[in-house]
C-alpha cells in the first residue's frame, strides 16, 4: 500500500476522519497504532511479528534501564538485539554468499544453504529509529516513554514506517502526546508537501526509471553517451523517488498534525561532499553522525583518526543501504571523496577563488559517478559501465529529450530557489500556478503503471 496508489487513498479516507475525532482522547494513539499495524500488514502480515518484537523489547529494555544500575548492560541487550535482527534478516544471504565463495576458493566442496526468508520492508528504518530511543535514553537525552501504546505508535507510525524519515524519539514522541486539534494550515501544508512528492515520484522518478532501467539491465550493449545519460538520469531518479516518498510521508504526517524532519534539502546544489551529506537523507546522515561517527571519536582524534572514523561511518552507511559489495564500494568512494573535498576546502584558493557554481558542478559530477556503484547490478557491471563510458565510441543514446528538459527545469528551479531570484517563487500566482501545473501534468501525462519506491528495498 504505497502513497501514490488508490488503496492508500481509501485507507487514508477511512483512517483520517476518525483520527481527527479521536486525536487528543485516550483512543487517539490506539487508533493510530491499529492503523499503522494494518498499513504494515498490507505488505505482509508476518512483518507484524518482527516489529512487535522489536518494539516490545526496546520498551522493556528502557523500562529496565530506568530501574537498574546496569544501564550499559541493558543498552547492549537492545543494540545486540536490533543489530542481530537486522543482520539476520538483511545480511544473512550476503554473509552466506561470501562464505560460500570463500569455501569454494579454498577448494572446500561444502556450501552453506542460502537462507530463504524475505527482507521485511522498512526494517532498516524502524530498527534505527527504535535504537535511537534506547541510546538517547541511556545518554540522558530524553525521558522514558511510559505508555507502550505511544511507544509502539512511534515505532510504527505509518507515514514514515517503510522508508523514513528516521525520526528521533525526542522529536516525535512529545508531538504524539499533544492534544491540540489539527489546524487548517496543517492540512494545507500537508497537501502542499504531498502534491510535490507525488509529482516527483509519479511524473519524474517513474519516468526516468524507464530509460535508466533499460540501460542498466544490459550495460554492455550501450555506448558512452547512453551510459552517461542513464547515470545522469539515475542520479535524478533516485532523488525524485526518495525525496518524493519523504515529501508524501511528511505531508501525510503533517495532515495528522505531526511534524517530521526535513530529509532532503536540494542535495545537488551542495558545494562540498560534507554539504551534500548535510542535504541528502538527512535523517540517516545525522543518525550515523550521532550514533556512529561521534562515538568513534568524530574529529577529535587527529587527521588520520578523523578520516578513519569518516571511512568507517561511510562504509557502514553504504552497507546499510543494501547487502552487496556495490553498496560497500559506494560508501567507500564517498568516504574517499570526503577526504579530498575536506582537504580542498581547507585551501584558500578552492575556498575563496573557485566559483560556487563550479564547486556545485564538481560535487554533482562526483556524486553522479558514485551512483554507478549504487545502481549497478554487480561490481562487474559497475566496472563495465565505467570502462565503457571512457572507452566506447559514440552512438545515438536515444534518450528522451522531454525527460532531460523536465530535469533541467527542476534543477534550474532549485538554483533559483537558493539565489536572489527566490522572491519570484514566493509570489502567490507562481505557487498556485506550479501546483495547478503539477496536478494537470499528473492527470494528463502520468505513466499508467505504478512502480514501487527504490528505498523500500533498504
Amino acid at each position: 500500500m504505497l502513497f501514490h496508489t488508490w488503496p492508500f487513498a481509501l485507507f487514508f479516507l477511512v483512517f483520517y476522519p476518525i483520527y481527527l475525532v479521536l486525536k487528543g482522547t485516550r483512543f487517539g494513539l490506539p487508533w493510530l497504532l491499529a492503523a499503522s499495524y494494518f498499513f504494515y500488514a498490507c505488505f505482509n502480515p508476518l512483518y507484524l511479528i518482527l516489529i512487535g518484537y522489536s518494539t516490545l523489547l526496546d520498551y522493556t529494555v528502557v523500562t529496565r534501564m530506568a530501574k537498574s544500575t546496569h544501564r550499559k548492560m541493558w543498552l547492549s541487550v537492545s543494540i545486540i538485539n536490533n543489530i542481530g535482527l537486522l543482520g539476520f534478516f538483511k545480511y544473512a544471504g550476503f554473509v552466506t554468499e561470501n562464505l560460500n565463495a570463500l569455501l569454494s576458493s579454498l577448494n572446500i566442496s561444502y556450501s552453506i544453504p542460502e537462507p530463504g526468508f524475505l527482507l521485511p520492508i522498512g526494517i532498516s528504518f524502524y530498527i534505527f529509529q527504535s535504537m535511537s530511543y534506547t541510546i538517547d535514553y541511556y545518554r540522558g537525552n530524553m525521558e522514558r516513554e511510559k505508555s507502550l501504546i505511544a511507544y509502539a505508535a512511534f515505532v510504527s507510525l505509518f507515514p514514515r514506517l517503510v522508508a523514513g524519515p528516521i525520526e528521533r524519539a525526542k522529536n516525535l514522541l512529545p508531538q504524539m502526546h499533544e492534544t491540540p486539534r489539527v489546524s487548517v494550515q496543517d492540512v494545507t501544508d500537508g497537501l502542499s508537501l504531498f502534491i510535490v512528492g507525488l509529482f516527483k515520484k509519479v511524473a519524474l522518478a517513474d519516468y526516468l526509471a524507464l530509460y535508466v532501467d533499460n540501460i542498466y539491465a544490459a550495460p554492455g550493449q550501450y555506448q558512452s553517451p547512453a551510459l552517461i545519460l542513464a547515470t545522469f538520469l539515475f542520479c535524478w531518479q533516485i532523488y525524485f523517488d526518495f525525496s518524493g516518498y519523504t515529501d508524501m510521508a511528511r505531508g501525510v504526517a503533517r495532515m495528522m498534525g505531526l511534524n517530521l524532519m526535513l530529509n532532503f534539502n536540494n542535495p545537488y546544489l551542495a558545494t562540498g561532499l560534507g554539504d551534500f551529506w548535510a542535504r541528502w537523507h538527512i535523517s540517516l546522515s545525522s543518525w550515523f553522525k550521532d550514533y556512529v561517527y561521534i562515538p568513534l571519536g568524530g574529529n577529535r582524534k587527529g587527521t588520520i583518526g578523523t578520516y578513519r572514523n569518516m571511512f568507517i561511518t561511510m562504509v557502514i552507511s553504504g552497507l546499510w543501504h543494501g547487502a552487496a559489495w556495490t553498496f560497500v564500494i559506494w560508501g567507500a568512494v564517498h568516504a574517499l571523496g570526503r577526504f579530498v573535498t575536506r582537504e580542498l576546502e581547507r585551501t584558500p584558493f578552492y575556498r575563496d577563488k573557485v566559483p560556487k557554481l563550479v564547486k556545485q558542478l564538481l560535487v554533482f559530477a562526483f556524486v553522479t559517478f558514485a551512483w554507478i556503484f549504487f545502481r549497478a547490478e554487480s561490481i562487474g557491471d559497475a566496472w563495465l559501465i565505467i570502462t565503457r563510458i571512457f572507452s566506447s565510441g559514440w552512438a545515438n543514446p536515444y534518450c528522451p529529450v522531454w525527460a532531460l528538459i523536465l530535469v533541467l527545469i527542476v534543477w534550474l528551479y532549485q538554483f533559483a530557489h537558493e539565489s536572489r531570484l527566490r522572491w519570484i517563487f514566493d509570489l502567490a500566482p507562481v505557487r498556485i500556478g506550479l501546483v495547478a501545473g503539477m496536478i494537470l501534468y499528473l492527470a494528463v501525462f502520468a505513466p499508467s503503471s505504478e512502480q514501487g519506491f527504490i528505498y523500500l528495498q533498504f
Partner: protein
Amino acid sequence: MKDANEAKIPFSSNNIRLSAREWIIAVIVCSALLYLGPALWGHLEKFDPSADYRLPYTLGNDYWLYSRYCRWACSKYDTLVVGDSVIWGHYVSEDNTLSHYLNQNAAQDRFANLGVDGFHPGALGGLLRYYGRDISGGNVIIQFNPLWMSSAKHDLQTEKEFHFNHPKLVPQFFPKIPCYKDSFSKRFSAAVERYVPFFSWTSHLRIVYYENMDLPNWTLEHPYENPLSAVTFELPASEDNLQEHISWTEKGIAQEDFQWVEPAQSLQWRFFRRTIDLLKARNNTVFVVVGPFNEHMLKPESYKTYQKMKSEIETWLQQNNIAYSVPQVLPSELYRDASHPLGPGYAMLAKQLFKNQSFKSTILKAGND
C-alpha cells in the same frame, strides 16, 4: 510545542506551500480545466463520420470516442446496432456490414454500426452503461454471439488468470469474475475512470495520438520528437485491412467440439441479460439477434448441446417479452469462422431480419412512427 517544532524543522526545500485560500483557487482552476478539457476537445478535434461509419479497429479501446460517436449516432439514426466484431464486421469492409445492408433494405440511413471488436457481453454491458448513456428512448438492435459461451474460458469462468478484452468495462468487484485477477488498484482506477470523463479523455489522447502509450513510454519510442506536435486534432480513418474474403473451409479451419457453458451457469449470458434490462430501463425498444452462429463448424455432440442452449435462450427471451430473431443458419461458405459472416452473409442476414415479423413490428414500426 508545535510552534517550537515549526521553528526547528524547515517546511521544505522549495516554496510550494499554499494557504487554504490558495488551495481553493488551485482546485477551482484545475477542476475547470479538467471539466472543460474534454468538452473543448470535442470542438477542436474533427469528427465527421460518413455513412456506414464504424469506429476504426485501432480505436476499439477508446471509450471516450465511443461515447462521442454514440451521441452523434443517436442524433442522426433511429436505430443503433450494437454488439461485438460480428456487428462491427471483422472480415469485411464498412460497406459490407450488417448495418450497411439493413440501410440498403430500408432504402435510407436508419441503422448505425456501433459494434466494436472484442466486445463480449461483460464488456458490452459496461460500455453501454457508462459510455452509452445517450442511448435512451430509441431503437437498439443488440446481437448476442453464442461464441462467448463456447467454453469456460470464453465465459470468463476459469480460475486461472486470463487476459480478456476490455477488462476496464467488466464489473470490477461484483459479480466476481473468476479469471480476472488485476490488482485492487487497477480495478479501482478502472471503476473511477467510468465516472470521470476526464480520465477516459486522457485515454483517448493516448490511443489516438500516442500510439496507445502513455507519454513517458511514447517519448522513449520517439526520443527526439516534441510530444505536443503529435497532437494533430485528426482522428485516424476507419481501415479495411482486415478483409479476407474466404470461407472458413477455404481457410482450413476444422470442425470443433465446443464445451458449451449452460445458460444457467453462464456469466456472459447473465451479463447480456443485465444489458437488456439496462437498455429497457432507459426506454429503448430492444431487439435481440442471436447468432448467426456457424453451426456447420460444430461436431455432432457439440451441435446437440448448442441447439439445447439456443432453445433455452429463446425461451428466456419469450418469457421476458423481448423481441428477437434467431436467424437461419447461413450457408457454410458465407462464414469466415465460427461466428463472422462474410459480406454476402451479412446481406442475407439483413434480408432475413427484414422478413422477420417481430423485427417489422418493433424496429421497423418504431422507426416509421
